[in-house]
């Protein structure tokens, strides 16, 4: 509680300063609005359900994209991490595709999926695929060969050696990749909504800005930060639970 209280000092001070500046006319109300108005807009948008609906739209797209990316990237990463030959075969393709900015795929995704969840989700999946793939490859490559030998001596077939030994051993690294990708997923989902897809929080902000509602625009932005923070906290909690052994090992 004490830590939270100390952590709140800075944002509260900034808010107070913001209110004071707006009140003194130092910042324009048309672009910066005022904390009081922003708070009112936030309460109203939550109360009438628009903010929650937009949040669901944005986060469902982000989660779909992240989930698809995780499944594909972990599977591909495990195979490429274990097989030097396949890795050499694909390294050029990976390095050529990876630098493509994911938002540059918006026109392509629009052509294929039209407007809606799948369009945002596909762009998010593309963006999230690379960090998870690269982290998975290096984590799988870094696992102790002794573990794989243990599996071979017991007669575990290759598929089970991957599932029961390689992937759990690489999980601490993979989780870091997923957490990085989760941040990217929200950024990309909101970007797609701002740029092209008329739905979700991103679109809500654009509409608020264009209809001269800076209070709602700021409220949506703050809300986005809050929800993102909660999502990250949830992922950390999950990670702590799944990786209990990892932290036990660290402390020993």
């Amino acid at each position: 509680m004490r830590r939270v209280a100390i952590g709140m000092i800075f944002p509260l001070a900034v808010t107070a300063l913001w209110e004071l500046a707006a009140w003194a006319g130092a910042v324009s109300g048309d672009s910066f609005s005022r904390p009081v108005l922003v708070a009112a807009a936030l309460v109203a948008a939550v109360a009438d359900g628009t903010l929650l609906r937009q949040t669901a739209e944005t986060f469902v797209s982000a989660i779909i994209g992240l989930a698809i990316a995780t499944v594909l990237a972990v599977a591909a990463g495990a195979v490429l991490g274990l097989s030097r030959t396949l890795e050499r075969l694909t390294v050029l393709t990976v390095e050529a595709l990876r630098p493509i900015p994911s938002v540059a795929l918006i026109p392509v995704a629009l052509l294929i999926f039209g407007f809606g969840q799948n369009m945002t989700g596909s762009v998010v999946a593309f963006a999230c695929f690379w960090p998870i793939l690269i982290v998975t490859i290096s984590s799988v490559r870094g696992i102790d060969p002794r573990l794989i030998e243990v599996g071979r001596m017991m007669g575990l077939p290759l598929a089970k050696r991957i599932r029961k030994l390689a992937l759990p051993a690489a999980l601490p690294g993979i989780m870091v990749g997923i957490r990085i990708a989760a941040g990217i997923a929200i950024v990309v989902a909101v970007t797609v909504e701002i740029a092209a897809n008329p739905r979700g929080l991103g679109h809500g902000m654009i509409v608020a800005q264009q209809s001269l509602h800076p209070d709602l625009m700021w409220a949506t932005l703050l809300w986005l930060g809050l929800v993102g923070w909660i999502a990250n906290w949830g992922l950390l909690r999950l990670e702590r639970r799944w990786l209990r052994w990892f932290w036990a090992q660290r402390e020993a």
Partner: protein
Amino acid sequence: MSAGAPPVLAARGVSLAFGTPPAARTILSDLAFEVPEREFVCIVGPSGCGKTTLLRVLAGLLPASAGEAHFQGRRVAAPQPDIAIIFQDYGRALLPWRTVAGNVALAFEARGIPKSEHAVRSAPLLAKMRLAEHADKFPAELSGGMQQRVQIARCLAQEPRVLLMDEPFGALDAITRQTLQDEFARLCESEHRTVLFVTHDLEEAIYLGDRVIALAANPGRIVEIIDVDLPRPRRQLETREDYRFLEYRHRLFQHLGHE
């Protein structure tokens, strides 16, 4: 053991060299010996004599350059569940994300035993290795000696015909080592286990073995084979003070880098 039955494990002229002929380095040179059923055979040699490499060849983890490893008369071309190996570095061989019971269960999973039977089957093994009250702990929460017991329990769960042991007690402190030596010797005695035990500690080799094979280094080759005529059960004080023990020790001493 019926007459004429092939030995459980045999090295038939095993040689191993790394590199291509002009620059090749010979690690093992024409090793031939047998491990008959129910016998505890120790291999002792200085570091660098290829003890661990030999064990890996016999386990099917590493192909020999010449000669063959045999299990029950058939060539060992790949690892097989009948041959279990216990590694010295238990910390690397255990799955840190699984509890003690979970680590043992890995052997059951490899054998396709249904999950419902795992607890029933692992309970006697854990009791035998004195791990019963640690079943739900992670390896990192156990001492080195306890972790090595887990690895032994897991290998026993595999129900192998022969145990290959690569300096299993080498990383433990002296008292833990002696305790584990005695426990393991009793276990092998009562269950008539067939064991090939590698160590650089010649006293350990004599203390545990029915037979001791001494290797010399560069290249690894057999220099002496001793049949150990000491009563069982062996005892840390009496056995080590027995005149025969001292005689064996004397004979082996010169092979361990003191030539």
